[in-house]
């Protein structure tokens, strides 16, 4: 079981608000994802799940609210307060660096706060080989080792060693997803299920503290889905990576997640362990709808 230290919040979303013109996509959403957990965000289509991801990973600038990431340990309220007032993007607190993601551009969220993500529709670099896709993900390490390209061009040994390490890490992940023998194939030529897993491997090559997966099981057959579950479970248990997951496939959500947040129309309607959420009448109503007479009765304040 997870230790006490692992149960500290890693990501704390507070009063997040996202408006597009007059449309409120996310309305006053607060939740947290704990370190070492697999946290699932579920909800009917259009509930704002992907918008939450876009806010966390810096593609959208939230209209208001705070997204705090504590890379190690938990930040004290006073630390958070100091950082929020300072106007800076991150600071070193007693328990490790803390980041305010809503203030950071997307590439810094990836390279400094160490948040990685995948998309609903696969976005591999299809023209590059499988191995290159995984090495691109280690760009910043390699860029530093190559002395911003200058040393790399002149063949410095340190660059070759860094590159060898990058290839080792890439091969480790290829082995984990069972694609080691296809390392030199163009990524676009892989079958769909392999591309899905390669995307996760590429995200893991950035060595993230938080991995955000947007519907990783979409379009997978039941066998591939089971392999995915096993992969995510093993990432959770063997690496210091916590997972935030958007998923429609309830067999995946209920089986692997430790914590579920349910959204509907941009607001949170339920939050808790899978067993609790599954039986929450509000969740059942959001997914299955309620009978007309129940709505009518609820409307006049009489419980059915």
């Amino acid at each position, binding site marked *: 079981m997870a230790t006490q230290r692992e149960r500290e919040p890693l990501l704390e979303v507070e009063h997040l608000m996202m408006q597009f013109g007059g449309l409120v996509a996310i309305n006053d959403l607060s939740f947290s994802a704990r370190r070492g957990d697999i946290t699932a965000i579920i909800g009917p289509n259009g509930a704002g799940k992907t918008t939450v991801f876009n806010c966390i*990973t810096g*593609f959208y600038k939230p209209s208001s609210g705070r997204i705090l990431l504590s890379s190690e340990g938990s930040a004290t309220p006073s630390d958070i307060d100091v950082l929020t007032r300072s106007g800076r993007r991150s600071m070193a607190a007693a328990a490790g660096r803390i980041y305010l993601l809503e203030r950071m*551009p*997307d*590439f*810094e969220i*990836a*390279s400094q706060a160490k948040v*990685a*993500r995948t*998309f609903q529709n696969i*976005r591999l*670099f*299809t*023209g*590059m080989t499988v191995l*290159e896709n995984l*090495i*691109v*993900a280690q*760009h*910043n390490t*390699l*860029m530093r*080792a*190559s002395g*911003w*390209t200058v040393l*790399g*061009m002149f063949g410095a040994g340190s660059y070759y060693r860094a590159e060898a390490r990058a290839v080792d890490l890439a091969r480790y992940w290829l082995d984990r997803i069972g694609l080691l023998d296809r390392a030199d194939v163009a990524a676009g030529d892989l079958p769909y299920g392999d591309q899905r897993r390669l995307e996760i491997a*590429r995200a893991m090559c*950035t060595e993230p503290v938080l991995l955000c997966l947007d519907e990783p099981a979409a379009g997978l057959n039941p066998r591939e889905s089971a392999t995915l579950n096993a992969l995510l479970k093993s990432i959770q248990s063997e690496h210091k990576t916590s997972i935030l997951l958007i998923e429609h496939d309830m067999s995946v959500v209920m089986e692997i997640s430790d914590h579920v947040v349910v959204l509907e129309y941009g607001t949170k309607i339920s939050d808790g362990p899978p067993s609790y959420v599954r039986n929450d009448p509000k969740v059942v109503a959001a997914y299955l709808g309620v009978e007309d007479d129940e709505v009518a009765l609820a409307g006049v304040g009489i419980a059915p």
Partner: protein
Amino acid sequence: MEYFFQQLINGMTLGSIYGLIAIGYTMVFGIIGMVNFAHGDVFMVSAFIALIFFLFLTQVLGFGSLVLALLVVLLLGMALTSLWAWTIERLAYRPLSGSFRLAPLISAIGMSIFLMNLVQVAQGPRNKPVPPMLNDIIVLRDGANYAVTLSYKQILIIVTTTVLLIAFSFLVQRTALGRAQRACEQDRRMASLLGIDVDRTVSLTFVIGAALAAVAGLLYMVHYGVVNFADGFVPGVKAFTAAVLGGIGSLPGAVIGGLLIGLIETFWSAYFSIDYKDVATFCVLAITLIFLPSGLLGRPEVEKV
């Protein structure tokens, strides 16, 4: 036959210069999907930078060694031209990156006119000459009434281009920066979510393109011996034609396109009419766009539905 071989050598020399400029067009197009029309004028500015430093070193400081002088001019020219391109990208293109597609293109045309006029005002409208250099020739084959020759100039141009292209393809294929460039070409948003600073990568792309154009500028000055403020336009558009012919976005395509354009122009001048050489070159542009819109090595754009 001798005449043919001589034209082949001349064409390759000219084509090398076009190829170096064409890489700048094709790289920028690949990464931000914009034709940088100011690139030809950056090339012209670099030729002036080369001219000024060359004259300063040889006439004022009295550098004895021509090779050393050219090397110093090359390095200074690459550095300064890169700085120009970096500034242009910062001032004229980046603020428009979120705008509609044509905005940076129009800004590039404006920048082109600006640079041309700036140099005209600052350096005067007349041709600026440098003393002739590297005029020794090697006679490769002495025919009955025509000798095939290779001048030191031509050797310098072809060798410099070859060495640079090898270094450059190593940069793109094997370094982290090159991989980041290719990643940004394919999917800029995904690249930035993997921690790649896309803005910086785009800046560096402009800088690398300009550094290659600076080499072309120096070689152009050595080859023709004169530089003029309007010299950016026609070579620039020809290099753009080369990039389109090779398949815009493709780096080997740019080099092959450059060589082909150089050869077409030279052979047309040699066998048909020198007055119509530009007509011939630009007919190639029209024919390519009609019959082979993705160029020789370009990938056809496939829209997934």
